[in-house]
């Protein structure tokens, strides 16, 4: 479709070339129209399918609506939904707390583990590819599938964990531990993701710098701290953003494990429950969605502004 022959320009090539050379920025009417379409169609889709609904979520969060009739039936109620959510919606605070725990565990355990593995595997090491592949494997599995696979490990009667430990723990059902069980499964996947990102970043570290530092008598740890780590700064920012986003997006795994209740509530689950669950409070759901939106944009926009500015400056 995209490789079909382009439309003829109408004028013989030579002549057209001579005419165009006068102003480099000048575009014919036809070219302008083609450009507008090439940019316009994807832009329209992005606006209609992502940004439009996102804004509607914000709008809905200030209204009461049963979720069935027309969107125009929504009754404005000001900040009432937010007030209700924080004061009168029992799963909200646990969900928020779980999201924070999720993020903290990712930031403090999973992400540093990924970095450590990347540093170890970046060395000239026999079999490094094999190690890398094994650790990366979970990343290609969907989080839903990760849930199913770990259920085989966590299952109370038939699971690997209880059989090996000789225990009778309900890893998924017990609300005092199921969050940690879910986090272990989620980290299993996150570590590999972080590892490949850092491995890519490590390839960009100038080996001459490391060598120079080693020549000056710096030990392995010192070289890492003063040479490798600073050069990884750009990668670290990407990893940080991805870590936050993944923590906010977490849904599939807990949904597969136990529908995201009884200790596994997350903000994303609360939003979803208001559409496909039995509790249909669109206003509450939209208020929670808006909170998610604001937090996400708070991370995404500053990051992208810096990245895109830098990129523009680079060329």
């Amino acid at each position: 479709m995209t490789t079909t022959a382009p439309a003829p320009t109408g004028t013989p090539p030579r002549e057209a070339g001579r005419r165009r050379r006068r102003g480099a920025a000048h575009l014919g009417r036809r070219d302008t129209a083609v450009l507008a379409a090439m940019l316009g169609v994807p832009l329209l889709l992005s606006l209609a399918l992502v940004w439009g609904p996102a804004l509607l979520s914000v709008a809905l969060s200030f209204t009461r609506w049963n979720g069935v009739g027309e969107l125009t039936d929504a009754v404005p109620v000001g900040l009432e939904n937010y007030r209700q959510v924080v004061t009168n919606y029992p799963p909200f605070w646990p969900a928020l707390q779980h999201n924070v725990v999720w993020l903290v565990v990712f930031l403090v355990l999973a992400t540093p583990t990924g970095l450590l593995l990347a540093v170890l595997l970046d060395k000239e090491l026999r079999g490094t590819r094999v190690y890398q592949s094994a650790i990366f494997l979970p990343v290609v599995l969907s989080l839903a599938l990760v849930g199913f696979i770990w259920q085989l490990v966590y299952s109370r009667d038939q699971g690997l964990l209880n059989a090996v430990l000789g225990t009778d723990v309900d890893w998924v059902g017990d609300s005092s531990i199921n969050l940690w069980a879910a986090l272990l499964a989620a980290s299993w996947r996150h570590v590999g993701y972080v590892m490949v990102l850092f491995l890519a970043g490590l390839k960009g570290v100038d080996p001459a710098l490391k060598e120079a530092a080693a020549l000056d008598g710096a030990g392995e740890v010192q070289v890492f701290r003063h040479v490798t780590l600073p050069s990884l700064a750009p990668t670290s920012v990407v990893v940080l953003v991805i870590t936050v986003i993944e923590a906010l997006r977490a849904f599939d795994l807990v949904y597969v494990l136990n529908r995201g209740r009884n200790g596994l509530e997350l903000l994303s689950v609360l939003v979803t429950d208001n559409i496909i669950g039995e509790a249909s409070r669109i206003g509450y759901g939209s208020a929670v969605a808006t909170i998610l939106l604001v937090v996400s944009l708070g991370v995404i926009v500053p990051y992208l502004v810096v990245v895109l500015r830098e990129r523009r400056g680079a060329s």
Partner: protein
Amino acid sequence: MSAATTAAAPGRAPAPPRRPRRRGPRPARVVLHVALTLVAAAFLLPVAWAVLTSLRPYEETARRGYVSVPDTLTLDNYRTALQDGQLLPFFLNTVVIVVPALVVTLALASMAAFVLSRFSFRLNLPLLLLFTAGNLLPPQVIITPLVSIFRDVPLPDVLSSSGALFDSYWGVGLVHVGFQVGFCVFVLSSYMRTLPVELTEAARVDGAGVWRQYASVVLPLCRAPLAALATLQFTWMYNDFFWALVLMVTGDKRPITSALDNLRAGFFTDNNLVAAGAVLIALPTVVVFVVLQKQLVGGLTVGATKG
């Protein structure tokens, strides 16, 4: 790879006056290998466990426990999962949704990236921000209005048995396109910026219009990033659980990853079958990973390194 040509880690000896010729002491290497082998094995364990469970007959595991030396290894569970669980139609649903969505996403994203990277106007930066940021939002942020909108968009019965965008292949495919175009624009535009301006300049001087500059000059040079993105996007779209779960109510229409959930409730009664189903569903992405590892990792890391 590149490390092979550079100096290896310095020795542990306290401040050696000269650069050590050999890398660190052997024992340290051995410890490292042992540690890494253990880590790698730990990462493989859940998958290996699923595979082992899937190969054992239910009766045997019921009798002797799941942690026991297997007597019989059989593919029966796979047959049951495919036949009684009827997995094949769900794989077909995935193909029907993912293949067109993938092609359209890459086509549209490459066009937008071409315009944004080759033609300079004031809105470039905000537009690129808009595309990329959209892809990073949690899906739940947009899902409620999306369901409502999709219910209101009618489709002829020929296209969708539900008569609307909601609960149709089109709806799920469309949302994939809308969501993933952003990421692909980001990656492709950063790649296209690295192509010399002279290429399209020369084509323009020869009288090539904008479309021709895109289709005949720029696009053929983007094979590598397009291959990487196709691999990555296939994995992502195949792995989608959420969109199809919420935007489809008819269980039979769901793609394989989302269908896993109905299957567990409907057909699977024992862990061995669940394991076989899980392995079957993992297979396509694992094959992609094994065969196209370079593209997959390249697609994943291009944003992280190129910025």
